[in-house]
């Protein structure tokens, strides 16, 4: 008898991965238990200053998620907690959690900080990487959730000493706490829960650089780690974002980064690439230049620049060319302290040509690698999971997220180094995998949020409250925030105005709620950052305070003011005042708007039947949704049908055949093979896709997985001489025992053909590893073969570094060339000769090649433009689909209900394609899990008195939402279809049709203020 499963999930680790998984699952009908070892959720991301490649402020993009996760009704958060025991199996796990005493009641604590103010114990602040101090009672960072302090029992005097001679030691915090939140008698708790599945994202720790003493870390004060440097840059860091050396507060003018500290180092068993350090070093160098008001000289010492992610190469190029960051390909011998007493560091290094130099720097930043944390190792042990030799969890091949145990999934750095988008992708993929496993239990354990009854404001005197945010120093250091507050107080309808350090923080939200009630506010204005990211957060606060969410407006005084007028504080302040005034005018004229509910079609359309499409389709079908899988070709499989082996040696032919068979036999998947789209209409919840053959598919969401293409080289005799092959062709020839290849003795691989060039200014990511794999294959078949790989930077990130090392040990010869000095292939008679300049020997090299393998770029899909038009989703300059947010929404489009995965998004390997495809299915599943589609209700509306039924509105409405009722001679808006663009309203000569939230009256009133 099969036991029924439990519709709840355990998520271990509340970094960005845990938060994303938790939100995805809680939003789609599962109860989430989120266990976090530290006293607050957030993980590593809050410590970072900015994130690459968009330079988004890490805290800014994360904090709405922290708040959303923190206040989600179906996410139970256990901080200071660890999983100590598990039993059971997929579908039914019993978990024991040990929650350490916090000594502070999070329900009572207001986060005011009076306890910390009186606490006499100062210790190194871990959140600031030990730069700066915190008290024994502390909060990790200002936006932390829960917004409550915690007592560190190892350092608290009372916890350490209790009573001495019958008298309590210290306990000053208890006296100071007005809320009565402190309880020194609190004990550790054991909590038992039952869940159907688990997602593990315990994160990582950074390499301890003091283990490699030649870098001088721990001995020389001017040597810091990259994470410490993040804190130096951060506005919320120990020096408020003022870039100084921690030990003497001197502003560094010359900073060096040393790459691969604790990465790519076989001697210390770290023979993997941490993948993220090249990008973060570039970012830190660029931001350092930006932050400092004196010119800063920045140099990055590296082995290979590995900027293989989406838009990373462009970031690298702009750092080099626009920002003047210097890049030195080198080997570091040692870092020593300068003898001049300056506290500076001296780097001794050799460049590629063997020349040894020394250079003195004010500050040296060690780009430390990623390794498994102690608790990750512990967790793997408790759960009896397979780990690799570096201690990272080992994932099942080509699964993206499956650990060695069924029902237990992993995301983020638990299974190896990963950047944020990859982590978020895996988090959504793991959530999707859980949703597949527990599809029958969806909705069984969740409850719905109830808001207080909405206050009726019609007819009331308008009372506007205004909150002006400092955003740390982001706004406050440029805009005179108190002056804006004072100005706001003088404006009509404003009854209250104040400033907030971080308006988005949990405590500020609570305070806004309290002020709404105290001041009887019925309109709220927040002047802070972009409404595009933060409007929902503040609107939620209004709802919780019993106000309709639309009695609100925001002024963007950061992204569109302080950040862009850094040199003109006075004018920025004037502008901030004006923008605040405009928001006050708009808000004061807002009226309550109620949401509108529309039907949700619970079927999905997946476009493209390659590995990505099939994976997405299977995941969604397993989640219980009907899936239409569309493939243009006559067969499923896409480009993967041409692969023989995966990057971890998997049999790709068998894998693809298996996928095809699973897709074919799944009862929920309807295949449309050889099918092409004619047109697409509709929106989230009710798309209609018409095929060329006339068939119409109704669906609620769509996933675009149309793959990419292999670049057809125009160079190196490709297409003219069949000894010149692309990687795919060489692989096929090797598998097919092509006699020409078998007999060949000299193989030359040329990297970056059609990548990292003017035509395609991006890295195709997979080709370095692919060439290494092919070279090893050639060597395995014919150990005597001479194999050369001509490369620009070897980008064998992650565990592929081992393959790179193996190839070198196997005698594959790697020769670097530079972009301006590409290899040349000539034909002398029938002989193909490759010439390249060897940078190490500094002389030209000529190789007679029997086979030339070109690492041809992965380029954007040819149908991208069509789909972009049909689904109204954007492409980037290179023709790949552009996600809603590079970091935190890697598979979503900004258009609701449309998702993407695979090569159509950017080049990547099959394992990564699978993870992304599962992520897209996970995200699409969140949308499909809703009974109805909810629209905010900011729609067009008609004043019947004024309407003349002329039909102009009907003519210009692309959503077909407006029609003229000729009997009553009035235009009628279909709220389900209206998207709120307002084209009707601007075309209406009579002023009869208008747009909620953006009425003619509001705009005119705003214009009146000029």
């Amino acid at each position: 008898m099969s036991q029924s499963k439990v519709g709840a999930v355990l998520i271990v680790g509340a970094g960005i991965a845990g938060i994303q998984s938790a939100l995805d699952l809680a939003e789609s009908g599962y109860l989430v238990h989120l266990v976090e070892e530290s006293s607050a959720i957030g993980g590593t991301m809050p410590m970072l200053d900015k994130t690459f490649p968009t330079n988004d402020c890490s805290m800014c993009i994360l904090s709405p998620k922290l708040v959303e996760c923190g206040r989600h009704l179906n996410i139970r958060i256990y901080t200071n907690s660890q999983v100590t025991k598990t039993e059971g199996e997929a579908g039914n796990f019993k978990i024991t959690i040990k929650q350490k005493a916090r000594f502070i009641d999070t329900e009572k604590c207001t986060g005011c900080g009076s306890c910390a103010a009186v606490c006499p114990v100062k210790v190194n602040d871990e959140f600031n990487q030990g730069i700066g101090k915190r008290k024994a009672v502390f909060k990790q960072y200002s936006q932390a959730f829960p917004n409550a302090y915690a007592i560190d029992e190892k350092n608290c005097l009372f916890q350490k000493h209790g009573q001495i001679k019958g008298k309590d030691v210290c306990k000053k915090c208890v006296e100071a706490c007005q809320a009565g939140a402190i309880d020194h008698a609190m004990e550790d708790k054991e909590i038992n829960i039952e869940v159907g599945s688990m997602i593990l994202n315990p994160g990582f720790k950074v390499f301890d650089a003091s283990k490699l003493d030649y870098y001088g870390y721990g001995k020389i004060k001017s040597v810091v780690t990259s994470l410490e440097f993040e804190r130096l840059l951060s506005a919320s860091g120990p020096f408020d974002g003022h870039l100084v050396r921690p030990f003497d507060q001197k502003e560094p003018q010359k900073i060096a980064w040393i790459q691969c500290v604790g990465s790519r180092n076989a001697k210390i068993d770290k023979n993997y690439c941490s993948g993220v350090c090249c990008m973060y070093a570039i970012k830190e160098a660029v931001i350092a230049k930006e932050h400092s008001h004196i010119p800063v000289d920045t140099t990055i010492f590296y082995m290979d620049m590995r900027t293989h992610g989406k838009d990373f190469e462009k970031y690298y190029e702009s750092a080099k060319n626009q920002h003047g960051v210097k890049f030195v390909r080198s080997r570091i011998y040692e870092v020593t302290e300068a003898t001049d007493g300056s506290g500076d560091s001296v780097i001794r290094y050799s460049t590629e040509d063997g020349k040894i130099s020394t250079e003195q720097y004010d500050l040296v930043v060690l780009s430390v690698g990623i390794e498994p944390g102690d608790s990750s190792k512990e967790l793997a042990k408790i759960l009896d999971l397979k780990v690799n030799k570096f201690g990272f969890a080992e994932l099942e091949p080509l699964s993206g997220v499956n650990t060695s145990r069924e029902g237990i999934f992993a995301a983020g750095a638990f299974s190896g180094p990963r950047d944020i988008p990859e982590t978020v992708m895996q988090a959504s993929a793991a959530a999707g995998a859980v949703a597949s496993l527990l599809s029958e239990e969806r909705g069984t354990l969740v409850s719905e949020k109830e808001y207080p009854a909405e206050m009726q404001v019609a007819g009331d005197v308008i009372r506007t409250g205004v909150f002006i945010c400092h955003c740390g120093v982001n706004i406050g250091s440029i805009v005179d925030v108190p002056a804006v507050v004072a100005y706001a107080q003088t404006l009509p309808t404003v009854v209250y105005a104040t400033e907030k350090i971080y308006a988005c923080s949990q405590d500020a939200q609570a305070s806004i709620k309290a002020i709404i009630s105290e001041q009887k506010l019925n309109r709220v204005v927040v002047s802070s950052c972009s409404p595009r990211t933060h409007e929902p957060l503040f609107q939620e606060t209004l709802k919780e305070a019993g106000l309709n969410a639309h009695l609100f407006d925001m002024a963007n005084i950061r992204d569109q003011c302080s950040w862009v007028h850094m040199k003109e504080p006075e004018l920025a302040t004037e502008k901030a005042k004006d923008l605040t005034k405009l928001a006050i005018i708009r808000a004061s004229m807002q009226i309550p708007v109620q949401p509108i509910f529309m039907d949700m079609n619970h079927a999905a359309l997946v476009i493209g039947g390659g590995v990505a499409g099939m994976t997405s389709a299977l995941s969604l079908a397993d989640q219980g949704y009907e899936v239409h899988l569309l493939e243009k070709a006559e067969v499923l499989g896409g480009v993967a049908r041409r692969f023989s082996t995966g990057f971890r040696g998997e049999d790709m032919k068998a894998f693809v055949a298996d996928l095809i068979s699973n897709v074919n036999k799944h009862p929920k998947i309807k295949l449309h093979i050889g099918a092409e789209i004619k047109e697409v209409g509709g929106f989230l919840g009710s798309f209609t896709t018409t095929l060329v053959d006339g068939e119409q598919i109704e669906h609620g969401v769509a996933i675009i997985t149309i793959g990419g293409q292999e670049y057809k080289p125009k160079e190196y005799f490709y297409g003219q001489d069949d000894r010149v092959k692309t990687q795919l062709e060489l692989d096929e020839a090797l598998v097919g025992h092509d006699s020409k290849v078998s007999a060949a003795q000299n193989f030359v691989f040329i990297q970056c053909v059609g990548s990292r060039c003017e035509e395609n200014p991006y890295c195709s990511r997979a080709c370095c590893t692919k060439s290494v794999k092919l070279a090893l294959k050639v060597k395995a078949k014919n150990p005597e073969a001479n194999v050369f790989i001509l490369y620009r930077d070897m980008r064998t990130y992650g565990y592929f570094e081992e393959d790179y090392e193996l190839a070198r040990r196997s005698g594959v010869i790697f020769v670097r060339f530079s972009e301006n000095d590409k290899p040349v292939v000539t034909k002398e008679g029938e002989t193909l000769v490759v010439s390249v300049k060897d940078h190490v020997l500094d002389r030209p090299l000529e190789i007679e090649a029997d086979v030339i393998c070109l690492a041809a770029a992965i380029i954007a899909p040819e149908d991208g433009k069509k789909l972009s038009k049909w689904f109204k989703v954007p492409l980037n300059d290179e023709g790949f689909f552009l996600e809603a947010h590079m970091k935190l929404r890697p598979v979503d489009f900004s258009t609701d209900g449309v998702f993407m995965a695979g090569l159509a998004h950017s080049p990547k390997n099959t394992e990564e394609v699978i993870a992304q495809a599962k992520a897209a299915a996970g995200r699409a599943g969140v949308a499909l899990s809703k009974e109805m589609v909810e629209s905010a209700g900011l729609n067009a509306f008609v004043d019947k008195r004024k309407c003349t039924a002329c039909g102009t509105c009907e003519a210009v409405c692309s959503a077909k939402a407006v029609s003229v009722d000729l009997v009553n001679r009035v235009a009628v808006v279909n709220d389900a279809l209206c998207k709120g663009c307002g084209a009707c309203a601007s075309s209406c000569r009579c002023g009869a049709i208008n747009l909620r939230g953006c009425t003619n009256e509001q705009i005119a009133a705003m214009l009146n203020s000029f």
Partner: protein
Amino acid sequence: MTSIIDDIRKTARQLLTEEKVDVVIGYEKGSLPLKATPCFVRSPQDVDKLIWDETCENNLAAFVVKTPGKKAIIAKGCDSRALMVLIQENQIVRDDLYIIGVSCQGVIDQRKIEAETGEIIGATITDGKISVQGIECDKVFNFTEVKDITCQTCRYPNPVLEDVHIGGSIEVLQQATLFADVMVMENKSDSERKAYFKEQMGKCIRCYACRNVCPMCYCQECFVDCNSPKWLTGGVDSAENLLFQTGRALHLAGRCVECGACSRACPQGVDIRALSRKVNKDVKEMYNHESGLTEEVKPALNVYSADDPEAFLVKE
């Protein structure tokens, strides 16, 4: 002309007698010389009031919208174009309308006469000659000398939509250059144009006669009268007048049928056409659109094309 009038009356009588329509909208002799006035004939006995000559200057389409029931209308070329747009814009039900089409030679611009004779006391029209008794002098004019400027360049004197045609049709003048008048204005310097419009707008007293005679101005509430939001202050100065006239011209974009009624109705002689003609020229040049010619071609601003010109964009 006499036979046309007879035919109009005959048709009107027949329509009313057979109760095909409730009313015939046409022209009757006005109380002032050389001024016909719109009339609404509801019984067969009254059809002899109807006239047809060069004084029939109103665009009768303007009266159709507000006249309930089944109606017949005497329509010149421009009236018929207006009717076409009004049908496209759901203002008229085609089945309720009987169009008596008459080709139009053009109408008289009284201002041209008054410029020479002073206020007109009496006048008669015979065979294209207009004998005027003026307060200052008497004079006989050739019709072509005093033809309204709109009619001089009219390209659609024959109705584009009609149920019956009365009289012959008129040969359309081939023009070497369309919108030559607009081009003259365009070729002036910025400051000359600015000064010209300032002067013209200075004359406007915002009596809204232009709007009231316009068949396309059928809004329940004109933007100038709107209280919430108030687009204009309500004051009368040349800037506000220009805002009104420009706003109106934009509301007519792709809809104006160039009847010239607005300019003729203006008691101050404001060159209102200078705005609407410019928009009409742009609409024609940018979108190859002329309003009210066929039912299929929709008003220019109700449609778009992916390759519409966008020379107006900034250069950055």
